[in-house]
């Protein structure tokens, strides 16, 4: 096997792993913020109800 194969293999592997890690961090940040938005909206609704009463 070409001794340079490992350079080629590492370059492509690092790019693919890097892309998936970035996609994963984007997805987890989205999920965290969406959960927070739902919770905050619920709290606001409860407070508004309290105000009306």
């Amino acid at each position: 096997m070409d001794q340079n194969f490992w350079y080629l293999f590492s370059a492509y592997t690092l790019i693919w792993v890097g892309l998936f890690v970035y996609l994963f961090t984007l997805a987890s940040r989205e999920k965290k913020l969406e959960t927070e938005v739902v919770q905050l909206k619920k709290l606001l609704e409860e407070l508004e109800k309290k105000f009306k009463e």
Partner: protein
Amino acid sequence: MAELTTRLRITPFGVICLVGLIISLYLSLIWAPRERVMGDVQRIMYFHVATAWIAELAFLLVGISSIIYLWLRERKWDIVAYSAAEVGFVFCCFVMITGPIWGKPVWGTWWTWDPRLTFSMILWLIYVGYLMLRVYGDDIPQVKTFLAVLGILGTLDIPFIHFATMWWRGLHPDSLVMSEEGLGAGMEVDMRIALAVSAIVFTLFFFYLMGRRMALERLRDETEDLRDRLEYMNNDNIRN
């Protein structure tokens, strides 16, 4: 595959981009001919050049949106600048990693202070500072102004990277893609096709990532807004 796309929240456009990346991988690693002098390690070029193009495109976008932000002071341009800077930084990291991996077997060294490499390192460091500042003081108006200026300064470095091989003598080879003889004239047709597909697919993927990153920033704004409203209502409740 379906589970992975759900877990990573990949939209149909994202799936198209990923399929494109797999096709590009096939073209680069199998379909394109083996280079006579460097051998298979030259195949790093198909992703190295494409990611370098995306980093330049992203940082150019940071510069343009930063200028518009300084002029109009509209949050949407700040969001474009921030998103382009983050995505561009990811691609710039790929360039800074794949470059030395390609350089070691061809030049015999991981790193050399060649003009193009040095200006690339400066650009990378500028954006390390830019993103750190974003994390620590993004909500202060003066910091936003400083960030816009830093973004423009980063963009000014791009021509130095791009034309470094023409302006100064160094180890990095001249651009094969934009040579004086024409676009990609120094390469075989199959190599040109593999590189073009890689550049197109990465460009589409960049816009996909930009869309997601901008949506994330808008979601962050919505959270901040809701927190402020909640705090205001709580204070009002205590006073009454």
